[in-house]
């Protein structure tokens, strides 16, 4: 197909990485981290 991009150099995640993305305990922890990150961004942005 014209314009098709083949992602040759992009790294594939390992099985462990893919598993961790939907592991409930791990993601509960990541949820806390991401929420904090978002809150920090919101705080910074709402200062203006």
């Amino acid at each position, binding site marked *: 197909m014209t314009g098709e991009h083949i992602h040759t150099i992009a790294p594939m995640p390992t099985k462990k990485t893919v598993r961790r993305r939907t592991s409930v305990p791990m993601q509960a922890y990541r949820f806390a981290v991401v929420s904090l*990150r978002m809150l920090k*961004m919101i705080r*910074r942005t709402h200062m203006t």
Partner: protein
Amino acid sequence: MARVVILGAGISGHTAALHLRRLLKKQHEVVVVSPSPDYNWIPSNIWVGVGRMKTGQVKFPLAPVYRKKKIDFRQAKAVAIWPEGAGDNHTGAVDIEYTLPGREGERQRLSYDFLVNATGPKLNFAATPGLGPDAGFSLSVCTPAHAEQTAARLVEVIKKLESGERQRLVVGVGHGACTCEGAAFEYAFNVEHELRVRGLRDRAEVVYLTNEYELGDFGVGGMSFEQDGYVTSSQLWTESLFKERGVRAILRAHVQRVEPGKVFYETLDGEEDALSFDFAMLLPPFRGQELEAFDRAGGDITSELFAASGFMKVDADYTPKGYDEWQAADWPRTYVSPKYPNVFAIGIAFAPPHPISRPHSTSSGTVISPAPPRTGMPSAIMGRQVARSIADMVNKGKGAPTHTASMAEMGAGCVASAGAGIMHGTAASMTMYPIVPDHGKFPDYGRNIKQTTGEIGLAGHWMKHLLHHMFIYKAKARPGWSFIPE
């Protein structure tokens, strides 16, 4: 008594209306003019488009909310602005045309002391022959009705796959100058996820068709992150996801036309090709709503108020410049019209000074690069800040806007769904600071790479789901709504 008229009850206009009502004393009037009876939390239309949500979950009637808040709601569309007033009347006014059942087509002239244009985008399907669900051959998820229709077509595709047929699903943007690549990305991966969880993925080919120069551009020129001691890019990160999930990508493409089952496109290198499809969801390019403007004598001043794209000119630097001369300071801060100090434009309705991604065009001049996105968070923040400025102008007699919301000074949090499901869903949670790169402040990458982050996982899906409920709660102006940040 002052009257503030807000045109549009979407993310930016509705936010402005609620804050204005909160900040202004009762004797002042807040009027909202919007053609649809409903508020739509547009980001969740993606989930309607894959059948995970019903339209009733992403929209609700505005009239009861405005009644409760004592906001005057006119179910109508604005058609013309008279910023200097008309004839002997020196007060600014806007002509509206009712869409309310029973009053359809009835025209009225509403005077205002302050006007906020928050009319969002006109979905410009007409820019590409054959594009769109109404007069064309492709689908959309831009409105709840479009998304519902798309979900029904997806069910048909799923049935065919179940019966052993092969199907090609094309998802992307339907014109070289589109914005909203993030929404196309979300829909592509949600569709891919739905097919995978049903065990049908091997019979389906999912193709992402985009005007982006590289994957991960998202109309913001991509992002750089710090990860494990390296600076990596959203390009590598996005390509990895495409590789992992087996989604084919056609980049740097401008859709020329859509015919039944076939999309014709050209790429930046001038090549032309056609792709057959069984299902195609292609987002339209955006332009400003069709609003006219007149001076007091009735002379047409539309081109003074609006840019050629139909978006309203505000306090930005619109001087044409080359990409390398663009500056963060070109971006508007207060969203006030340079000519009329009581007229503002927020959200998608303001005219950006230039794209964020590097522009590209073919040798014959076809533009193939994303227009700058104005996503939910900045749109809502503009709504709140402009409401604060107007409140200060009314309450304290300030002569100029007192609050700012430059996209080159604010960050954004963005959660892009890559598949729904409370246990198996995933989404990419991203933060970036600032939205518009500032190469003066951050010479290396244009953004603060410590505050520009991204990760994919189930946590992102939970976050997106939570945001859906939180923002609908806020939009309904339920108790404590104003404590929920934009």
